[in-house]
Every structure is written in C-alpha cells, then in structure tokens.
C-alpha cells in the first residue's frame, strides 16, 4: 500500500514551507521521508545537492544538513536540558566544554537561558519544545524539519511559539519544512503552503503567502490573511 503517490517538491534556501493537509494525507510520511526516517520506495531525495539514500543506505553527509523536531519534545529524561541540547554534538564527538558553550548560546537563542542544569520534567511543554528546537539546531543543519511541533501545546503557548519560531527562522537563516493541520498556523508561518490531499497522498496545490516578515499576531485579523485562510479551508473541505 502506498500512503503517498509521486510527489515533486523543491524547498529553497531560507524558505519556510508548510505541508498542510487533512489527516491521512501523508504529510507526516512525507516529512519523515525527507528526514531519512522512512525510505521512499521510488524516487529521489536530495538535500543541498547531496543524495539522502544511496544503495539502500542513508548518507550521513545529507543527514548532517537535516534537523528534526517532533510533535513531542522527545527530550531524554536522564539528561539535563543542556546535555539534551548538546546530545547531537556529543554523538559527533565534540569536546564537553565546546558543546556546553554551544548549548548555552542556543538556549539563549530559543529563550530558555538559565535552565541548563534542570531536568526535562521540570520544564513546561512549551519550554521543552524550545529545547527540542535548540537540539535540532545544535549541529547547524541547513534545513529544519518540524512535524506538528506545536500540536501538543495549548493555544496561547502555540501563538507565542509561532512568533518565536519566526524569530529563530530569521535569526538563523535556515530553511524550514513544517507539518501542521492548523490553517491559521500555516498561513502565519509559511512562505509557501503545500496543500496535500488524501488517499493517496499527493500535492493538491501550492499557495504563496506574500506577507512581509517579521509577522505579528495583528496580521491574522487582516482581510488579506483571512482570504487565504478561507480559500484554503474551502479547498480542504473539497478534498478531504
């Protein structure tokens, strides 16, 4: 069975692409394929010009340019926040002092400075997700892949983290591919929205979102914003 039929998509440098679609459209499958967690049965994936798969093996050069953030923060409860963020660097063999300094800087960037020695269970859901973003950024990948990163958070925290994510996006100059089923979140964050339709999953259409950055929550009240939201909602109702 194929969850996803042939899909052609290019993500530009410093671009924020949102994969939007109803459940069962394969958006998470597509993201996990881009992240190397699932091998595509056919087709090619290349990351910054380097193939992700070759002879059935994932290529570490391509993986080095990918950072993943999941719906759950997935922090290791036995590591302090600092050690969680530095984990990818530890796996790559970086010296403790060096990776601690890097984790410290990243924690300031994502707004959780001062919590270095805390256990994950001592942090709120929003703060844990910030730490997960910092961990994905630790080895400076060019592309950040985010699978419904704020889906498990309450609405207010979600708004706050949407603004924070844009700030981090602008500050770090990464490309981001983000999966969501929230239309508002998609329009608020995206440069381009890839609308996926289900059974089998395929690209329905690609919508450009022209708003200037940095965006504010007031933008959501404007007619131009609402028009994009409404047209997407109408199209989603047709295809799901």
């Amino acid at each position, binding site marked *: 069975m194929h969850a996803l039929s042939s899909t052609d998509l290019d993500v530009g440098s410093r671009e924020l692409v949102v994969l939007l679609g109803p459940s069962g459209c394969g958006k998470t499958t597509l993201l996990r394929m881009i*992240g*190397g*967690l699932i091998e595509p049965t056919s087709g090619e994936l290349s990351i910054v010009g380097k193939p992700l798969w070759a002879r059935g093996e*994932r290529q*570490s050069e391509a*993986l*080095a340019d*990918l950072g*993943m953030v*999941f719906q*759950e923060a*997935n922090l*290791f*409860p*036995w*590591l302090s926040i600092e050690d969680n963020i530095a*984990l*990818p660097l*530890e*796996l790559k063999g970086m010296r403790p002092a060096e990776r601690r300094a890097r984790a410290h800087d990243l924690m300031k960037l994502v*707004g*959780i400075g*001062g*919590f270095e020695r805390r*256990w994950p*269970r001592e942090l*709120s859901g*929003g*703060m844990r997700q910030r730490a997960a973003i910092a*961990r994905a950024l630790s080895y400076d990948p060019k592309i950040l892949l985010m699978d419904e990163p704020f889906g498990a958070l*309450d609405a*207010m*925290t979600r*708004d*706050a*983290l949407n603004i*924070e994510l844009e700030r981090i996006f602008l500050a770090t100059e990464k490309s981001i591919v983000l999966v969501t089923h929230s239309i508002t979140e998609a329009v608020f964050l995206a440069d381009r929205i890839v609308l996926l339709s289900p059974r089998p999953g395929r690209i329905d259409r690609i919508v450009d979102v022209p708003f200037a950055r940095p965006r504010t929550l007031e933008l959501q009240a404007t007619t131009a914003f609402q028009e994009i939201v409404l047209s997407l909602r109408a199209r989603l109702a047709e295809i799901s």
Partner: protein
Amino acid sequence: MTADNPTPPPQLAARRGFLASREARIPWITTPLLLAIIVLIWHAYVRMSGISPFILPAPGAVFAEWVALLGNRRAWFHTGMTVYATVVGFFWAALIGVVLGVLIARIRWLELTLNPFIIATQVIPKVALVPLFVVWFGFGITSKVIVAGVLAFFPILTNTVLGVKSIDEGHRDVMTALNATRWQVFRRLELPSALPYILTGFEVGIVLAIIGAVVGEYLGGNQGLGQLLIQAMNGFETSQMFAVLIQMSLIGFAFYFAIGLLKRILIPWHATGAS
C-alpha cells in the same frame, strides 16, 4: 510570552521543597515510635502471660543475646558466610540477567526460543530445588551461592527485558534522525532508559538472594546464619534464634539500602531514584 513564561516563581518552588522535606521526615519519627510500641507490647505480654521463654523470650533477653552475638567471633564468621553467598550469587545473577535480558529484548528469535523455558523456570518453586543443588554442588558454600543466584536471577532478567522493550519510540526517532550508531543507541538511549527497570529488578533480586542463601544454609553444611539458626533451634535456645533473625534482618536492610543508594547515584532523574 505570558503563556510560556520561562521564569519559575522562586518562593513557590522553595516552599514546595520545604513541605516535601518535612513530609519526608515523618518516617524518621514514626518508625522508631512504632517499633518501641511493638517491643513494649511484646514485653508486657511476656511479663503478664508467664509464657515459657522457650516459646517466646522477653525482648530484653533477645537484645542481650544479640549483643552477645555481636561479641562472638564465630557468629561474625557465620554472618560473613551468608553475606558472601548473597553477594556472589547476586553478582552473577545481575551480570547474566542483564546481559541475557538485553539480548532477549533485542533479538526476536532468541526471545521466541527462550520464552517457554523462562516461563517454565519461573513457575517451578525454585526453593524446592535446593536439595538437588546440595546433591550436585555439595554442602559447601557453592550450593548456597547458586541458590542465591538462581533466586535473584529471574526478577533481574524479566525487568531488564521489560526495560529495554519499554523504550520510547519518539526517543528512538531522535537517535535515528541523528544517525547514531548501534553502540551509541545502546549506550546513550537503551541503557539509561532501561536502568530504572533494571535497578527495580536488583531491589527484588537482592532480597531473594538473601532468602536463597539462608534456605541453602538450612539444608546443608555447618556455616552461615541459616545454620546458626538451625543449631539454636536444635538446642531450644529460642532467644538465640531471635538474635540470629535480627542479624539476618539487618543484613537485608543493609543490602536494600545499598541498592537504594545505587538508585540515587545512577538515576537521580527518575521518580524512584529521587531522594
């Protein structure tokens, strides 16, 4: 950023800590108090009922006998033998239990092959095998070590299997996305994740190891606290039996405490390891 405020209110945290520490102190008061009450009732009963000291000696007589035991070099030799059998048996049980547990949890065909045998050996009352071990390994220390080890082995094995199998899929995704090697996954994810389970297995295992050592001593040889107890029984020295029981219980507490300490050192992040 009002909804996701990263600054904890410091007074609140401090207050919670204060209350928690006060609550934690309760057993330090209630335990000696309850013990004192039990000893008092025991003493009163012996005094008023006029029960024979061969059946129930007074707490004072038991205490005096225990103090005498502490001053007796032979008694320390017996204590040492029981501790030795327990520790060595537990050591092998822990080593083999953890290694085999990790393998069983990770290698599907090994699990399918061994599972019926593991269940079968779980069901057999292992203490009933002690006479057989005496026949095979003699009346010396070896049979005690083996009984202690066999009893401690199964909770350690089953807890290790459970621990390795309970690893969060999301955590695995993180390691896969980071392209971690098999060894890194084991060392940085599987081992720490399974450690609380393994240590719980140790906690059960060490107590069973003591039981195994003592039961082994009951049935054979002339060494160990189990043997000392049997000798006291044969001589109708009931207060001495109680003294040996106290000694055994203290060993049990010491080992249980040692595992607790290990938990605090190895898994301070886990609820069962927190002080």
